[in-house]
């Protein structure tokens, strides 16, 4: 009989807690969303699988000695993985549309209001019993509104590592939900006439401008916001590799092999943070709600800023493109294009929306730098 007991004690069945089973269901839900619904599958698949692994009783994936523990320590605790991803994103980003029409940066700035308003909202949630967000926690949650996965993970790992799992899951889920969240807000804030506005063709941008641009961005960041230089610096390095044309091999590696490898580990490490004691809390619900609000507010302020600019400016601006200011490249720009086509089937806004879209990436990196400098 003793032997039976030993055998029984060595199975997972004897040690499953309710929380672990619930988290495995969450992991399976993430796998379902990735595989069947195709929501950001590149990230939700490893995150979901990481959640399964980390909740296995007795296996200890996320304790010292377990593989997920080390992947997290090496990659996310140090901030290395999100920064490498950011370099790859830089190598994939074409700033041509933004350089051709630099005023679009104002739209990228306006959409960051979603971040700071959510910071306010997260603190206000402390009135509700059960919530106790510090200023650090609130900042890490608010950056979900930047709609930029690596930035959110980088900031969360620095300011609120215990909330990282929920923040990363919220950020990537909402990025996948952009086509559902944004259009109603965009339509509510614009008239059909405004949505039909056609914009003039963008000018051709020389390669030299594209080469100088990332260096100029980095120079400004060094001078005015050194706290953002890890993010902006890696981003600019990737972009310079893309545009300079002399390191094509490095460019290809940064935007393909390297970013793919890092994505696997980043996803697993985020998944390792999906343990019951940290995820099955009322705070997670708060984070999910605040994330949706952050996206909504960012979209709204972007559209409103574009409306203001189109009133003031001599050149025509379709207010829809303001919605792309939340970053979420290139999904948000595609949504703008789609909503624009619904109003006017001959109006292709994609290239015009790419300007505010990449401006949003810079804007959220700057916002993250501000939060790191003031709260971190």
């Amino acid at each position: 009989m003793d032997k039976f007991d030993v055998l029984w004690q060595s199975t997972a069945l004897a040690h499953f807690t309710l929380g672990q089973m619930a988290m495995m269901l969450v992991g399976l839900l993430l796998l379902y969303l990735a595989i069947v619904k195709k929501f950001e599958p590149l990230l939700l698949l490893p995150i979901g699988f990481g959640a399964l692994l980390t909740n296995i009783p007795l296996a200890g994936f996320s304790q010292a000695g377990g593989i997920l523990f080390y992947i997290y320590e090496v990659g996310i605790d140090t901030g290395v993985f999100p920064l490498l991803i950011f370099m790859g994103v830089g190598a994939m980003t074409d700033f041509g549309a933004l350089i051709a029409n630099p005023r679009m940066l104002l739209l990228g700035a306006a959409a960051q209001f979603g971040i700071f308003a959510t910071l306010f909202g997260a603190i206000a949630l402390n009135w509700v019993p059960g919530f106790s967000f510090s200023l650090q926690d609130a900042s890490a949650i608010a950056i979900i509104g930047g709609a930029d996965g690596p930035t959110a993970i980088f900031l969360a790992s620095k300011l609120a590592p215990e909330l990282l799992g929920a923040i990363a899951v919220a950020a990537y889920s909402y990025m996948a939900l952009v086509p559902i969240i944004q259009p109603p807000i965009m339509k509510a804030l614009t008239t059909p006439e405004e949505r039909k506005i056609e914009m003039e063709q963008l000018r051709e941008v020389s390669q030299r401008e594209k080469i100088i641009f990332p260096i100029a961005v980095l120079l400004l960041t060094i001078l005015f916001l050194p706290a953002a230089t890890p993010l902006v610096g890696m981003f600019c390095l990737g972009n310079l590799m893309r545009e300079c044309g002399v390191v094509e091999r490095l460019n290809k590696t940064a935007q393909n092999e390297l970013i793919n490898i890092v994505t696997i580990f980043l996803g697993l490490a985020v998944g390792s943070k999906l343990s019951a004691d940290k995820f099955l809390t009322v705070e997670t619900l708060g984070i999910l709600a605040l994330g949706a609000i952050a996206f909504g507010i960012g979209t709204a302020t972007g559209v409103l800023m574009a409306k203001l600019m189109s009133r003031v400016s001599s050149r025509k601006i379709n207010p829809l493109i303001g919605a792309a200011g939340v970053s979420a490249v290139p999904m948000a720009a595609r949504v703008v294009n789609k909503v624009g086509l619904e109003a006017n089937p001959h109006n292709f806004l994609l290239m015009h929306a790419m300007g505010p879209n990449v401006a949003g990436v810079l804007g959220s990196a700057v916002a993250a730098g501000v939060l790191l400098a003031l709260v971190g």
Partner: protein
Amino acid sequence: MKSETVSTLLVEAASLLAIGMVFVFLFLALLIAAINLIAAFCRKFPGNFPAESSSVPLTKPLATPSRKIDDTTLAVIGAAVHQYRKQHQSNVKD
């Protein structure tokens, strides 16, 4: 949480909101100026420096067929094709 601490935190969050948004706008406005400067610089000094090098393949294909076919080769190929077609036609007829 105590309501006093929450209200002090709220004041801090509000100041973060104001400072953060002002800073983001100023920074990106500065960037607009910088982009315009770069554009002006590039218009003024339009040297043709690395032109289209991003589309150049990494390694040259081993045997690159020269694009231009000189007249003699063209004539030879033309004659050969003509001959072949003639033969082929006569074969079909047989």
